[in-house]
């Protein structure tokens, strides 16, 4: 186990039992060309083009980049800059649905993948435009391409979903466990690894029996094990998950592969299975809509679906005293306007109580209670880093290893003075990047 972290009420019971429901195909989608880590995709369509469901509309612009596919059949009405749910802006291909256009990419019968080579699997994943669906949106095929000199020893399926409120991964694992675990086997084949772990938090203990059954069935082919980890945020953070499962510590500024581990999210594994077995590109995902909404639940939505459509269908209204958060409550983004499209990394849509704008300026002083130090899973000293950042002493922040901060939010969560520590650290890190250190 890792040191630090916080225990938070999970609020998962709001949507935990809600079966995944198909959200209707929207009349209009806006598909971001930059919804992944790395370079934005280059558009392959222009205004007026007709596109089919599953058709490639953007191609990778470099090694760390991704294909982008149309999630509906219709006509391209424009390519324009839009705000994204992650707080950034990106050129988006706006497509209007046209039901007369048919012949979208048929998902063929499930093919066996035993005969495929690791390179062929990786290429299928690349073609399908799969990126990490846990929130980071790192192109998955890059993760499957191990750099020379490194060796993958084990694969961890991250089913922790440690953010409060979110239940999408839990539902996907519950309803399609076979598909997810087949995805895990495909990943292991692509990485030539025969050691795998499925990691869940203890609040999903009810799945343990079923997971055990599945993994014991695949044991002759793959040495897999189940790890039930304590419910402690940020259990699902890549570095901390690796520490909890394997006792290995990813070195500062290093990558999981430095300790021989590769971690995949539940929905990423399922997308890989669908891509490799059925040739299906990544055009939809499951997300949780919850919080102060009339009908909380888990929805399968097309990438590019306007968030206002989803809010309306779930009986969610925004008003003073209610805010929209995309993602989990610990790391999600509070966006000012709901007018954004769903992207591949959208894990949830939350309506949470908000503080009315008071116009109050200034940050409360740190009382040095040291709660943040106990809570920091990276064992940093947020109290001191926050004081330096407040005074724009970026170099002092760097000396305290601010660049190791994973922005998990534990320090801000426990701070009795409600200091916006993560906010300050993001600022300091951006300034340090700008100054090239």
């Amino acid at each position, binding site marked *: 186990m*890792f*040191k630090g972290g*916080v225990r*938070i009420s999970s609020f998962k019971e709001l949507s935990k039992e809600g079966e995944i429901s198909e959200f209707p195909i929207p009349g209009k989608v806006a598909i971001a060309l930059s919804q992944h880590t790395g370079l934005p995709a280059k558009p392959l369509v222009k205004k007026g083009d007709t596109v089919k469901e599953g058709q490639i509309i953007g191609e990778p612009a470099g090694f760390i980049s991704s294909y982008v596919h149309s999630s509906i059949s219709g006509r391209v009405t424009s390519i324009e800059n839009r705000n994204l749910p992650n707080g950034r802006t990106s050129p988006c291909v706006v497509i209007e649905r046209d039901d007369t256009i048919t012949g979208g990419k048929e998902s063929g019968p499930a093919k066996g993948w035993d005969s495929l080579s690791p390179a062929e699997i990786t290429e299928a994943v690349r073609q399908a435009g799969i990126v990490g669906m846990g929130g980071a949106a790192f192109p998955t095929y890059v993760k499957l391409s191990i750099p020379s000199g490194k060796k993958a020893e084990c694969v961890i399926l991250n089913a922790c979903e440690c953010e409060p409120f979110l239940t999408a991964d839990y539902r996907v694992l519950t309803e399609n466990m076979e598909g997810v675990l087949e995805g895990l086997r495909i990943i292991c084949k692509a990485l030539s690894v025969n050691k795998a772990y499925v990691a869940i938090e203890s609040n999903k203990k009810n799945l343990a029996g079923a997971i055990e059954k599945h993994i014991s069935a695949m044991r002759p082919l793959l040495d897999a094990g189940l790890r039930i980890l304590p419910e402690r945020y940020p259990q699902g953070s890549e*570095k901390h998950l690796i*520490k909890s499962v394997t*006792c*290995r*510590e*990813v*070195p*500062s*500024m*290093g990558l999981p592969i*430095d*300790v021989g581990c590769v971690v995949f999210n539940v929905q990423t594994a399922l997308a890989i299975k669908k891509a490799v077995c059925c040739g299906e590109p990544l055009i939809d995902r499951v997300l949780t809509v919850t919080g102060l909404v009339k009908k909380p639940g888990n929805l399968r939505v097309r990438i590019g679906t306007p968030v206002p459509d989803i809010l309306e269908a779930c009986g969610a209204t925004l008003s*003073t*005293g209610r805010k929209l*958060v995309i*993602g989990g*409550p*610990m*790391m*999600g*983004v*509070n966006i*000012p306007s709901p007018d954004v499209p769903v992207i591949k990394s959208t894990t949830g849509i*939350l309506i*949470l109580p*908000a*503080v*009315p*704008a*008071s116009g109050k*300026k*200034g940050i*409360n*002083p*740190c*009382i*040095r*209670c*040291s*709660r943040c130090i106990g809570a920091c*899973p*990276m*064992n940093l*000293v947020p*109290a001191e880093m926050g004081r330096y950042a407040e005074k724009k002493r970026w170099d002092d922040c760097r000396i*305290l290893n601010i660049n*190791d901060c994973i*922005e998990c*939010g534990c320090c801000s*969560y*426990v701070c*009795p003075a*409600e200091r*916006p520590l*993560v*906010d300050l650290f993001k600022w300091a890190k951006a300034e340090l990047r700008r100054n090239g250190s």
Partner: protein
Amino acid sequence: MNEIRCAPHVHTSESTSRIMFSVAAALLPAMIGSIYYFGPGVMQVVTVCVAFCLLSEVISKKLFGRTASLKDGSALVTGILLAFVLPPGIPLWIAALGSFLAIFLTKELFGGLGFNIFNPALTARTILLVSFPVQMTTSYLVPFSYRTDAITGATPLAALKEGLDTGIPAAWEMFMGGRAGCIGETSTILLLAGAAFLLLRRIITLHIPLSFILTVALLSLATGQDPVFQVMAGGLILGAFFMATDYVTSPLTGRGKIIFGAGCGIVTFLIRQKGGYPEGVAFSILFMNMFVPLIDRYTLPTKFGFSGKAKK
């Protein structure tokens, strides 16, 4: 319109003001005990200290244009703690002056809440002690004497230092609080009750109080003193649980807190044995306050990704 906030969007229910009011609540039992032992005059000292602390805070805020408000409760806690380290018979104008010294001089001049180097209540007490040595050392009341004709007496530590036969109470008396001393320091049991509340509320940890008290006890034992007497006769219990644990003026990490507490214990013992004053708790805490930045620098936690196991 709502405020756009950066993550996280959930927050613990703990707040600065809840912590401060909890500390104030934890001091209540000892305060009531003190009224019982030393009479209603105690209430006057507490009221004057709190009132003048709040007043000094308001004036300072106006003067320096600070945003923090009275609602955070820190001035209230400073007021009570200052009263607790003054003799029950102290002239009220000295208590008022002390309040100003605690808030304005020690805290606000250094940048306000969170920025002071020294414990405000103890700094004020120390300045008063060197400025008004007579009033500060001869205003200790004999317990229950207020019921007849208030008479002053020596504290147990002073009695010991001067080799007096009288004035050294039994251990049980000291445990309950029936001995001469500062307003809030005499009752070990009532102070421990308040401390237990703070421990349960997870506002303080045992690192500082335990290392502080154990150091004094062990050093006493090693030099043939009575450790029980040394622990309960002066301001050690009050100092260890309520003064040395002050967040702002104590180290951040567990290891640092243990070093800090042990340092306080050593200095307290040395002053009591070798110094000119009978009591050294206040001096020791102020002395160790100066080492806090240094202790913090050398007791940083081992960061994730830097442990011996992690290889590049």
